[in-house]
C-alpha cells in the first residue's frame, strides 16, 4: 500500500505544479503562427484586450463570436470598463491572436476597426517556435 500512495502523491504533486488555469485567453479555433522571437514578456501587459481572429475572418472577443462589422459595440464596452477603472484608452493594448492562415487584409481591417474606436497600441501574438518541431 505505501509505495502506491507514494506514487499517487507524486503524480498529484506533478499535475498540481503544472496545472495552468490561465487558458481563458486561448481559443481552439485559432492556431497561432510560430516565431523564434516570440518569447513570453517579462512584464505582463497593463490592460490587455484579446481579440481572436479565425481563419474565416470572424472575431472572438470575451467568448463571443462576431463579424468585423459587429465588433464596435464590444470595443465600446471595453472602453467603458477602462473608464470605470480610471484608465485611459492609450493604456490598453489590443492583443491580436490571428489564425496563421487568416487573410492579412482581415487583420488590417481588425486593426482599423480598433483604431476607429481610439485604440492605439497593438500586439500581434505568436507561438514560441521550438527547435525540432
Amino acid at each position, binding site marked *: 500500500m505505501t509505495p502506491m500512495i507514494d506514487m499517487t502523491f507524486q*503524480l498529484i504533486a506533478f499535475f498540481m505544479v503544472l496545472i495552468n488555469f490561465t487558458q481563458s485567453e486561448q481559443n481552439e479555433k485559432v492556431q497561432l503562427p510560430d516565431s523564434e522571437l*516570440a518569447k513570453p514578456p517579462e512584464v505582463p501587459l497593463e490592460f490587455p484586450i484579446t481579440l481572436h481572429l479565425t481563419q474565416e475572418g470572424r472575431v472572438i472577443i470575451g467568448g463571443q463570436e462576431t463579424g468585423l462589422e459587429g465588433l464596435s459595440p464590444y470595443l465600446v464596452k471595453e472602453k467603458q470598463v477602462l473608464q470605470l477603472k480610471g484608465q485611459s484608452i492609450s493604456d490598453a493594448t489590443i492583443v491580436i491572436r490571428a489564425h496563421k492562415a487568416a*487573410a*492579412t487584409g482581415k487583420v*488590417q481591417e481588425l486593426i482599423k476597426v480598433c483604431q476607429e474606436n481610439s485604440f492605439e497600441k497593438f500586439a500581434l501574438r505568436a*507561438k514560441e517556435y521550438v527547435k525540432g518541431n
Partner: protein
Amino acid sequence: MKVRRNAGASEDKGVEIQMTPMIDIVFQLLIFFIMTFKIVSMEGDFNIRMPLAAPREGLPDDEQIPPMKVRLQAQANGDLASIKLNEKSFGTMEELRGYIMQLIGTERGPGSIQDTAEVELDCDYNLNYENVINVITAVSGYVDRDDNIVKLVEKIKFSPPRKPA
C-alpha cells in the same frame, strides 16, 4: 472510587488510519488534475505601432527617417509570392534579414539607426497571416549562437489595407 476503564482491549491497538476514504479522495484529486492538464505552448507578442488615422499636427521630426517599405505579394492561394524592399527582391527570409542587418549595422542605443529605423508592411489582402509574422520575425531580430535575441528594427507598422483581389 474506582473508575472503570472502557473496554480495555481497544486501547492497546492504537489509532488506525482509515485508508479507504483517503485513497478515494486522493484518486479524485488525481483524476481532476489529469483531466484539467493541458500542455500550453509559450506565446509572445510583436508590438506594432499604428498611430490613429488623423496625424498629429506640427512639423515632422527631423531625425525621423522614412520607413522602409516591405512589399509582400501573395499568390492566389495566399502563399507568399515575392518580398520586395526598396525595389530589391528577396527570395528568402534569411536574405531579407541579411539586408536589414547590413542597413542597421552594429550601432545600438538611443539615436542609432537601429533605434529610429521603421518598417512599413504593404501586404496583399489575401496573404496568409503566417507570412507576415515570418517577415516581422526576419526584420525585428534574430537568435544568436548563445540563444540571445539580437534586436534589429523595433518599429513596425502596416500600410493601409489593400482592396481584396
